[in-house]
């Protein structure tokens, strides 16, 4: 089409072209673009609005039924709700982050490197960005970086027990998260605390065959052991030959009302002793910390956190854009204005709050409005980050439009979703056009 326009233009050789001639020349320059815009943008707008009042195949008119479905159907309501969350959170968060990064990186020695790194995610596809974050969000702390980091923190405050999944054997009973010996004990007693339900891998390699300590006057002694004899046999609740002692088990000596008097840990052969325990009776308990399971990882991509998780990934992608736009505005602020404020005794914070931010308002406005438009249309990253099972919970209008029109093949309802999207973008468009006009004036 562009080729056709060229020779025709060459004919308009005269220096002063008449109005009719100019129309023709302009027409030839404009035709290719206008034809494409007409066929693939303008006509579809009309066709989509019409289709939104028709049924799934476009065969007959159904009035406002599709719109009624849109606002009563659970899936679309979730999509609308999520889009509201997106619009409420993302533009503000991205603008604020961009402002902070732009201002703080201004005097950085490695400013270029910093800005390049933060801006970089803008260059890659939302698909790749989504894949990047799915690896970050993997639930197992062995695989997902985020949960691995949390696991490291959790380990410091709540170290996992060595024997998760153990259950009480004969003579023992569950008590809270731990276990107690059913029989109370007195000084001089030797207790046998059996645990079952432990796999051979859970027995530490340092473990030795269990040993029942000898009785000692004034002491409460005992053994904690894996009450399972390879090959069967033996008696439940008592240490049989071949059964392993369990090392490093935390054992409490308590009053019968449950108050902890003393604590100790078992030796490699499972034995333990409370010296000079005083008069009894006591209760022996294996505390719950021995059985605390390891941190299983937060389900970032589960139904509850899916939308916040995707939003974080999206903010990570867009923060660089906001930073670059705002940094350009920052560079254009005359230094004298900032210095004048400081000379007048304003603190860094006051200068930032009262001078810098107001001067950057136009750039922040641009970022905010741009993000509102993009966020209303958010699609790729939701499709990629949300696992198939969570797409209902993560749904947004653009995703719902695609799923309805092309997955469920309901063109009417899909078109209504598209019109809804358009109606939401329209006010922002008017705002932008006003700004554009003001700039031309």
């Amino acid at each position, binding site marked *: 089409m*562009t080729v056709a*326009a060229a020779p025709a*233009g*060459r*004919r308009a*050789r*005269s*220096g*002063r072209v008449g*109005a009719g001639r*100019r*129309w023709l*020349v*302009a027409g030839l320059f*404009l035709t290719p*673009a206008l034809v*494409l*815009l007409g066929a*693939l*943008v303008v006509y*579809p707008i009309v066709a*989509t609005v019409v*289709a939104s009042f028709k049924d799934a195949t476009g065969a007959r008119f159904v009035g406002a039924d599709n719109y009624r479905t849109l606002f009563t159907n659970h899936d679309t309501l979730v999509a609308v709700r999520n889009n509201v969350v997106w619009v409420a959170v993302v533009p503000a968060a991205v603008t604020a982050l961009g402002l902070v990064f732009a201002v703080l990186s201004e*005097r*950085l020695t490695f400013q270029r490197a*910093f800005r*390049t*790194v*933060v801006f970089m*995610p803008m*260059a*890659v*596809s939302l*698909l790749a960005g989504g*894949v990047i*974050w799915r*690896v970050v969000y993997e639930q197992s702390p*062995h*695989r997902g*970086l985020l949960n*691995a980091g949390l696991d490291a923190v959790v380990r410091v405050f709540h170290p996992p027990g060595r024997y998760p999944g153990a259950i009480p054997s004969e003579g023992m009973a569950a008590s809270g998260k731990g276990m107690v010996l059913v029989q109370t004990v007195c000084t001089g007693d030797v207790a046998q605390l059996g645990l079952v339900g432990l796999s051979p891998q859970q027995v530490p390699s340092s473990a030795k065959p269990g040993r029942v300590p000898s009785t000692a006057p004034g002491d409460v002694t005992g053994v904690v052991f894996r009450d399972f004899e390879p090959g069967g046999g033996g008696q439940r609740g008592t240490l049989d030959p071949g059964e392993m002692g369990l090392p490093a088990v935390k054992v409490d000596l308590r009053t019968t009302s449950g108050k902890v008097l003393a604590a100790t840990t078992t030796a490699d052969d499972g034995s333990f002793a409370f010296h000079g325990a005083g008069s009894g009776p006591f209760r022996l308990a294996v505390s719950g910390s021995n059985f605390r399971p390891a941190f299983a990882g937060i389900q970032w991509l589960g139904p509850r956190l899916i939308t916040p998780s995707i939003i974080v990934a999206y903010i990570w992608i867009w923060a660089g854009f906001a930073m*670059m*736009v705002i940094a350009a505005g920052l560079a254009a602020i005359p230094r004298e204005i900032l210095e004048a404020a400081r000379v007048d005794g304003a603190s*860094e914070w006051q200068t930032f709050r009262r001078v810098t931010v107001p001067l950057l308002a136009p750039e922040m406005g641009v970022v905010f409005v*741009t993000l509102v438009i993009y966020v*209303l249309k958010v*699609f*790729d990253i939701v*499709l990629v980050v949300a696992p*198939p099972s969570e797409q209902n919970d993560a749904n947004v209008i*653009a995703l719902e439009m695609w799923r309805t029109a*092309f997955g469920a093949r309901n063109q009417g309802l*899909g078109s209504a*979703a*598209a019109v809804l999207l*358009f109606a939401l973008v329209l006010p922002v468009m008017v705002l932008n*056009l006003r*700004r*554009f006009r003001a*700039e031309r004036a």
Partner: protein
Amino acid sequence: MTRVRRASLTAAMGAVGLLWLVPTVGLLVTALRPRRLFDESGWWQAVTHPSQITLENFRRILDNHQIVRSLGNTVLITVPATVGVVLLAALAAYAFAWIEFPGRDVLFLAVVALLVVPLQMALVPVSNLYGRIGIFGSILGVVLFHVAFGLPFAVFLLRNFFASLPRELTEAARLDGASETRIFLRIMLPLGRPAIASLAIFQFLWVWNDLLVALIFARTSTAPITVAIQQQLRSFGGNIDIISAASFLSMVIPLAVFFAFQRSFARGLLAGAVK
């Protein structure tokens, strides 16, 4: 700023920089480890166990016909869609900037107004239209759609740039008897190079990175890399070797463009933001 404050600022910003860098590094390292290791341990293990690093995944996807073909399709879609937008938009922008005709400003505003029409508004009718004229599923269909939706921004950007050029240039050329085509080719295009470069980079990255348009208008044999990867996502852990390596391959060109033309890219985005 005191020294302590400067040091803590440097440390904090360094940490933020790492936060922005690490997820991407994570994907690269994941792509460089064998799949069975993905189930067992995190990618960061490779830092202390460099022997885990292997090019096996990359070698395997280069033998994977679908992935290789989809990379080719990405090029076949992106290049014409970029050239097409630049050409059509430059022609239209020239008319809007330098040829006076009645209704010019209204028409220009109408084209710019199309800037924020969500492309969702066009998906259903255009797929029906493509079906009728027989280009549904073809690369041509994907390209035309990208060109159409790239035009409003492109026309806006180039028209403003052309209009900012000194009036004397075109007037002198017209007095010398140069045709509009000649002015366009000999004056506007060369002088418009900075704006055209920004536009081309922006459009190139936009189309290269597109998922939605290709998801709808391409079929398996014409699908670009983004769609090919998306189709592997159903079993994320099971296909992680393909997903991570292909994702990384799909990022190479955009990242190269980004690093080579960072300034122009930023300028294009800025211009786009002032829509």
